């Protein structure tokens, strides 16, 4: 288990983190979401020893993450960084060695990863001569080349074209299957929804929601029901007990059912108006969950 436990961090008067806690299981893909400046990067930098928390700690397999553990973590910083004049292959081998690989193994791993990420032919080129997309791949390869036990990636998908996104996603899923916990931050919530087993939403310095996307949905305040009744006139559901009408749109009705409201009663009322072409619980998208979680002033941690 990779545990982030009660992280606090202030820069001067600016309290960036106010008790960030979440857990990532081995083989789990954890999507880390939050508005700009919410503290995602600071959280990841604390895990990598690049920032010191005022309180709290990060643990891997029950043990606080120290320098030795950190060398088993693959990291991709938000600010991409590579030696511009160093060749791709040599650079990857260098990072592998910094993570503790022997010389020969590092060279082999560098070749393997360059090949796997489609950089085989650019191995002897200086990084600065590569396109931005390819530099991004080298950056990812630098995080993966030491076959790390944990992956922490800050905005790995930003700046990638759809094909790049797919190949990066495939590479990350492969790591998950190896049993590696993967934490990545992203603004692309559709991507997070598609890839991640678990999601954490960071707002105002703490995790306001975390769990699987399904869990988040079920715990979302106010469950919504969409009923399409083409023949009904607006106001057909106004008097149903425990039901709040969100919108009417020529028969396309969205209702919010309070605690104890009976959905079967709603169905009966709908049938009474005539034809019912659609009757289903509305699944909020992650974007909606995110908006809800981020905008609600009171914490709704799951």
């Amino acid at each position: 288990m990779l545990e982030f436990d009660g992280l606090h961090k202030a820069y001067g008067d600016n309290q960036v983190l106010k008790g960030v806690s979440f857990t990532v299981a081995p083989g789990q893909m954890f999507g880390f979401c939050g508005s700009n400046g919410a503290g995602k990067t600071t959280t990841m930098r604390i895990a990598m020893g690049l920032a010191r928390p005022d309180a709290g700690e990060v643990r891997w397999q029950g043990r606080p993450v120290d320098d030795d553990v950190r060398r088993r973590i693959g990291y991709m910083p938000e600010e991409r960084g590579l030696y511009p004049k160093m060749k791709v292959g040599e650079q990857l081998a260098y990072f592998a060695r910094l993570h503790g690989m022997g010389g020969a193994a590092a060279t082999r791993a560098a070749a393997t990863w360059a090949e796997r990420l489609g950089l085989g032919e650019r191995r002897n080129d200086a990084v600065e001569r590569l396109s931005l997309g390819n530099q991004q791949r080298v950056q990812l390869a630098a995080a993966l080349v030491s076959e790390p036990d944990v992956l922490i990636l800050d905005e790995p998908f930003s700046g990638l074209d759809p094909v790049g996104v797919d190949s990066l996603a495939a590479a990350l899923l492969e790591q998950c299957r190896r049993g590696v916990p993967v934490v990545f931050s992203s603004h692309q919530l559709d991507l997070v929804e598609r890839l991640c087993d678990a999601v954490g939403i960071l707002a105002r310095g703490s995790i306001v929601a975390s769990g699987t996307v399904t869990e988040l949905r079920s715990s979302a305040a106010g469950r919504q029901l969409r009923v399409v009744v083409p023949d009904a006139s607006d106001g057909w559901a106004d008097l149903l007990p425990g039901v709040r009408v969100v919108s009417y749109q020529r028969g396309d009705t969205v209702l919010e059912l309070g605690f104890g409201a009976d959905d079967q009663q709603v169905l009966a009322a709908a049938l009474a108006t005539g034809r019912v072409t659609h009757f289903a619980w509305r699944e909020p998208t992650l974007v909606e969950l995110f908006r809800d979680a981020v905008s609600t002033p009171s914490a709704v941690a799951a």
Partner: protein
Amino acid sequence: MTTIQTPQSTATTEDAVRTAETTRPPSSGALVRLVAGREISTRVRDKGFLIGSAVLVVLILGMLVFQVTMNSGGDETDIAVVGGDAAVEQALIAQGEAFGTDVTVVPFDDEAAARAAVEDEDVDGALIDPSGAQPQLLLETEAAGAQSLVQGALTSLSTAQQLSDAGVQLQPGPQVQLVTLDPDPEDRVQATVVAVVGVIVLYSLIILFGQFVAQGVVEEKSSRVVELLLSTMRPWHLLAGKVIGLGLLGLAQILAIAVIGVVGALAFDVVELPGDVIGPVVTVIAWFVLGYAFYASVFAAAASLVSRQEDLGSVITPASMLLVVGFLIGIQAALSPGGTLARVTSLIPGVSPMVMPVRQAAGEAAWWEVGVALVLMLLAIAVVIRIGGRVYSGALLRTGGKVSYREALRAER
């Protein structure tokens, strides 16, 4: 969750098992070695470095050739002799020794040929008919040295002849044993010249390699690779690796120059005694190590404050100024190695590496002065590494604008 089936999944599981066995956390020493190794291998392939090194070697060779041409003929005298015998030749050589010059006697058959040789400057002078009643010395221009040398030789020959004719048996006089209280000042001059050349090389190399250290620090900051590096190591690993790696390269270079210089100087007879050149060279190399450690640390700390190569000049200028001032004083010290300026500055850390070697070579530095200079320099290095290391650690992850020393020292990660 999307699942993408790849045929590699089983292979990677094996990879994971394999690497888990072969990978272990590197020790501090291993990390420093890795960083140093990268610095060296990157530098030795760098065109700027190769050109810089070649220029330095060419400069040293040029100085040697200059010395050789300046010296040639100075300590050697070629004398053409027409109609002389072995006794004349011996007398000339013996007299030459007294004058401090190697005399070579070139026999000529007639006066015209000898005259031509003098005019062409093939020989320094021509002695005609030395055994006759009226010997003649031909010189290109009047030179008292050559004249008294030849006059002395002929006088002693004639005296010996007259005494022998009178039946006096000459006994060699007692051999005087030489005891020097102050070693030959001539040797001191040579040693000082060697030290000055050494200080020029020392200064150039500290500037060159200090610059490399500073540029390397800024490169890592400006490319942001430093964040990735610091996720695997401590700032001091990175700093030590960089300074040591480039330092070894600098040491290799000064050693190469020293070997070329010493071998060349001895081979071309620029200096007579190996001690005159080897002593100052060893001193200069020792001071190079100290000077480099000092300036490399200062430059690294200063460079860590900025994130762009363009801003580098503004932060390393103060340290560069100290280096330049030290260099100028060092050159000046060759003229008055016992002067107050040289005496005081040879103790000041940062300046001492360029002044003390010159004073030591000139024989003007007392052992305690060298000791004090060394202790002060070592203390300064310790302080610079300690404070510089803190500045470096504090400033390294602050990219963007220029960080002040105060901010860097206070910086908490």
